[in-house]
């Protein structure tokens, strides 16, 4: 009762304080926009928080944001007295593509890409990631066109090519004298790259490879850059040498001349208008006896001698194939990290709107209540803020894992990047939808961004590895870790599975608030689920096999457990990065608020249906978790503005409803 009274007092004070002073000029019935900057306090240093969650290259990011904000090419518009930059999505598909290209040229002239393909080392790789994250905040088409050119085309040459390829192609690519694309996917084969039907045969008489599209399902599909701009592509194709198939290999093929004319024996068609990403010219390619010199085989994994001998340093065809997939790993890291920035944009907009928009009075003649003062609205948005913080720390971990890679860490990178790419991009779509709804009708206006981003970013759950397939890879990897440990009777090591070696944690029968906020309990609860699901998966697969099914078939039948397990892995792995980020901070306001966010993140993981499905939490404990979430949301409510300001998205990259939406919609602005 006291608590309820206290809440009402707080609410009343808040309403009284922020109601506009009576003025003879404005009628009392009018709403006025009350800027949250003047009423909300920052209890911690938002600059420090931004540094922590951006993780690296803050100056570089601000420079890039500034480059975009100051140029007419980025379509600045004034709304409510503020400048906003965002592409004109009312442009035709062709116009959007041309604008994307002009923006790339603008970056090129300013030296943004300096070293992106010609320098090596952690520093440049991190700077590149920052560049991609910032471009993605402006527009997904800009991000994607850059990603195809630098990570897929450039990455393929770097990883799959050898010295002479590097010398011949990298500098020209960095300077965009060559515009690259990446022809892997076909109409008939997407995730199953090993099944591509394009055929390349070696002609030892001329020392050339001859490329053919043997049937319609073999046409290259969704090739970003192919429809309008790309001059070259990395082509993935079956390689036949002396009549025998050596599996999928990668070749450099020129598809347009310097003037943009399509090369002989190549046919290109457009993929057409899409639900988003129309600034990227996705195309389809057919090859009709296209001949390329022998040197165009990217030969770091395998080579063909002039007289037609197939030579490979990797004997095992599975491993050889895996090596060809290397460029996709960095793409996945990049996609995972940038999806987090879309969640930041959407939450910054939705929270700012909720701090200025009111709806319904509690009593007649009282001012209406601010959206974010409704516990239900807090319950919708604030857990998503916590999730976004968790994703930020996990993304920083993933980037570091990638740039510090060694041959030994390849498996970990593959599993963690698969898991995080799928989880973050799914989370992002959920966050975008919730934020769109939280902004009501305003969320539907393209200029307000949140709704539009759904169409733009939906593709992230499909490209660079379908999310469901990636998650299957995670559960399969965990399964084999288990089998390997069992077979050799050795302890688990790697992928964060060391907790499997310890005694199984026990969840207390009654969960108090202080237990629920204890990081050890939270970690125990997340480990318990992962451990149990892995045990169950192993048991179910063995059971199916004992009934005569093949391992593959057994896995297919146990897909539900496998899905639950891969989610459990992601949640636990993300949580671990949160704990580490928190542990590295000195005591103080930053650490305090992060501790609260970490608890909120852990508790929303515990709300996952698997906790009840498999009985890790009793019905009573489930109710305690729920209650604690509500409690934490109201504790974080006063920090809401500071928490989203720390995302570091400049005002110009948010949208009119995030600021003075009354002025932005006034008659004088029509």
């Amino acid at each position, binding site marked *: 009762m006291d608590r309820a009274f206290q809440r009402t007092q707080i609410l009343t004070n808040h309403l009284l304080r922020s109601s506009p*002073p009576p003025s003879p000029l404005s009628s009392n019935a009018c709403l006025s926009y*009350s800027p949250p900057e*003047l009423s909300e306090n920052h209890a911690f240093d938002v600059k420090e928080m931004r540094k922590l969650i951006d993780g690296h290259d803050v100056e570089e990011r*601000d420079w890039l944001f500034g*480059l975009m904000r100051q140029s007419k090419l980025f379509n600045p518009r004034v709304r409510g007295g503020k400048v906003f930059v965002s592409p004109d999505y009312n442009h035709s598909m062709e116009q959007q593509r041309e604008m994307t290209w002009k923006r790339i040229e603008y970056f090129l002239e*300013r030296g943004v890409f300096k070293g992106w393909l010609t320098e090596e080392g952690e520093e440049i790789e991190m700077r590149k990631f920052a560049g991609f994250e910032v471009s993605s905040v402006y527009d997904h088409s800009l991000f994607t066109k850059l990603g195809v050119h630098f990570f897929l085309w450039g990455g393929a040459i770097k990883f799959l090519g050898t010295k002479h390829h590097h010398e011949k192609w990298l500098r020209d690519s960095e300077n965009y004298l060559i515009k690259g694309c990446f022809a892997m996917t076909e109409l008939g084969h997407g995730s199953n790259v090993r099944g591509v039907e394009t055929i390349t045969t070696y002609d030892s008489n001329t020392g050339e490879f001859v490329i053919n599209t043997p049937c319609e399902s073999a046409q290259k599909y969704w090739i970003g850059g192919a429809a309008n701009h790309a001059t070259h592509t990395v082509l993935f194709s079956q390689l036949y040498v002396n009549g025998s198939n050596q599996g999928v290999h990668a070749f450099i093929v020129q598809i347009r001349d310097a003037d943009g004319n399509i090369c002989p024996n190549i046919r290109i068609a457009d993929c057409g208008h899409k639900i988003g990403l129309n600034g990227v010219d996705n195309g389809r390619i057919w090859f009709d006896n296209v001949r390329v010199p022998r040197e165009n085989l990217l030969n770091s994994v395998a080579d063909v001698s002039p007289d037609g001998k197939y030579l490979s340093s990797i004997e095992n065809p599975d491993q050889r194939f895996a090596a060809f997939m290397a460029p996709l790993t960095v793409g996945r890291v990049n996609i995972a990290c940038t999806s987090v920035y879309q969640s930041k944009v959407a939450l910054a907009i939705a929270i700012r709107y909720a701090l200025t928009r009111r709806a319904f009075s509690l009593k007649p003649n009282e001012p209406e209540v601010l959206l974010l003062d409704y516990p239900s609205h807090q319950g919708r948005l604030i857990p998503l803020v916590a999730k976004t913080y968790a994703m930020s720390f996990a993304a920083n971990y993933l980037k570091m894992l990638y740039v510090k890679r060694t041959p030994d860490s390849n498996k970990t990178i593959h599993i963690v990047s698969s898991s995080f790419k799928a989880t973050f991009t799914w989370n992002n779509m959920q966050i975008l939808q919730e934020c769109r709804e939280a902004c009501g009708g305003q969320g539907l206006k393209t200029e307000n961004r949140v709704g539009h981003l759904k169409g733009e970013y939906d593709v992230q759950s499909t490209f660079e590895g379908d999310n469901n397939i990636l998650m299957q890879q995670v559960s399969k990897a965990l399964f084999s870790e288990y089998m390997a440990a069992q077979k050799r009777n050795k302890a688990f090591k790697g992928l964060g599975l060391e907790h499997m070696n310890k005694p199984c944690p026990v969840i207390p029968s009654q969960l108090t608030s202080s237990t629920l906020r204890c990081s050890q309990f939270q970690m125990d609860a997340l480990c318990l689920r992962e451990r149990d699901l892995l045990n169950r998966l192993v048991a179910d697969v063995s059971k199916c096999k004992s009934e005569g099914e093949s391992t593959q078939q057994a896995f297919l039948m146990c897909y539900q457990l496998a899905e639950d397990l891969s989610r459990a892995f992601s949640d636990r792995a993300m949580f671990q990065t949160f704990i580490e980020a928190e542990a590295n901070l000195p005591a103080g306001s930053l650490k305090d608020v992060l501790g609260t966010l970490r608890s909120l993140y852990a508790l929303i993981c515990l709300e996952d249906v698997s906790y009840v499905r498999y009985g890790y939490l009793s019905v009573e404990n489930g109710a305690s978790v729920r209650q604690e979430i509500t409690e934490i949301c109201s504790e974080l409510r006063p920090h809401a503005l500071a928490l989203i300001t720390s995302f570091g998205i400049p*005002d110009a990259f948010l949208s009119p409803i995030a600021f003075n939406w009354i002025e932005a919609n006034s008659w004088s602005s029509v």
Partner: protein
Amino acid sequence: MASSVSSQHDEVLVEEKSFARILTLNRPKQLNALSSQMISRLLELFLANEDDPNVKLVILKGKGRAFCAGGDVAAVVHDIRAGGWRAGANFFMKEFTLNYLMATYSKLQVSILNGIVMGGGNGASMHGRFRVATENSLFAMPETALGLFPDVGASYFLSRLPGFFGEYLCLTGARLDGAEMLACGLATHFVQSAKLPALEAALCAADSSDTVIISSIIGQYSEQPSLKEQSVYNRLDVIDRCFSQKTVEDILSALENEAVNRRDGWISTTIQTLKKASPTSLKISLRSIRAGRLQGVGPCLIREYRMVCHVMRGEFSKDFFEGCRAILLDKDKNPKWEPSKLELITDTTVDIYFSKVKNEDWEDLKLPARSKFNLPPYVIAKL
């Protein structure tokens, strides 16, 4: 109707005319450089006028040939010598508070910039709603030549000029005339000085606080001056190409590349100016304007206050004192900067200027509360 409420010796003269208040900076011999007393007085007057329902408009102008040549930096240096860096910090704390008050003022401020307007003079005018330039206007933010950096909220108002013109003004301290000020948006109007008395009378008679009405009154006296042929504003393309580069070093080499392609006195002058400025000042100024472009005016002033405290403390570089010696005191115009070269100043060093001052009882700038006022939309947009 008019009643004088101040004596001739006051450093700020006050005239009450109907619903308008005319404040005149009155230190003509010092080109109206802002003393600590003037800043306190202005703060007092702006606060009182905001609370006074009879005031709808505040006009700010300067006596003599300057609007205001800046903060009285020589006095600041003197105070620091006598009382330590905190004395300097206190001056800037008060000045930046005034800048914030002006930037978030709920009433209209019209500044008549009929003469020199530099440094702190820009801080006292650019944040207000209307800035009237004349044929006598002479603008500059010359701090990098003085071992300081463009402060008084310049990282807010310079960074919002078209393209990368702000970086150009900020780093080179280049001077603009009235026509150029209008073209780039530093001034909202251009009025021939001969028409100023009539404009003032019309504003005092207006009895309005409506932005549109006041703007159209000033508009009746304004004109569109043409830019002189050699105006730097006609070189925006070169400025954008060069001053958008990532670092000061990159900006210099971009300018040098331009110079290779064509013989152009302006480019070599610009290069020379940059090479004469304090390297530390250049680096922190560039970082500041780039950060300011993405922040509201309040956070800009808070950041600048941190920076200015580090400059006053002189922990890393004492260029500010050297600059004041060479330009203001000894006037030998030959400062010896330390560190002397751009490459000697690392990013980590620049970082220091943006961090909190590690000193007991030091605090970030506390902005005055503005929530009790009904702020106009153009103010809300700056927050």
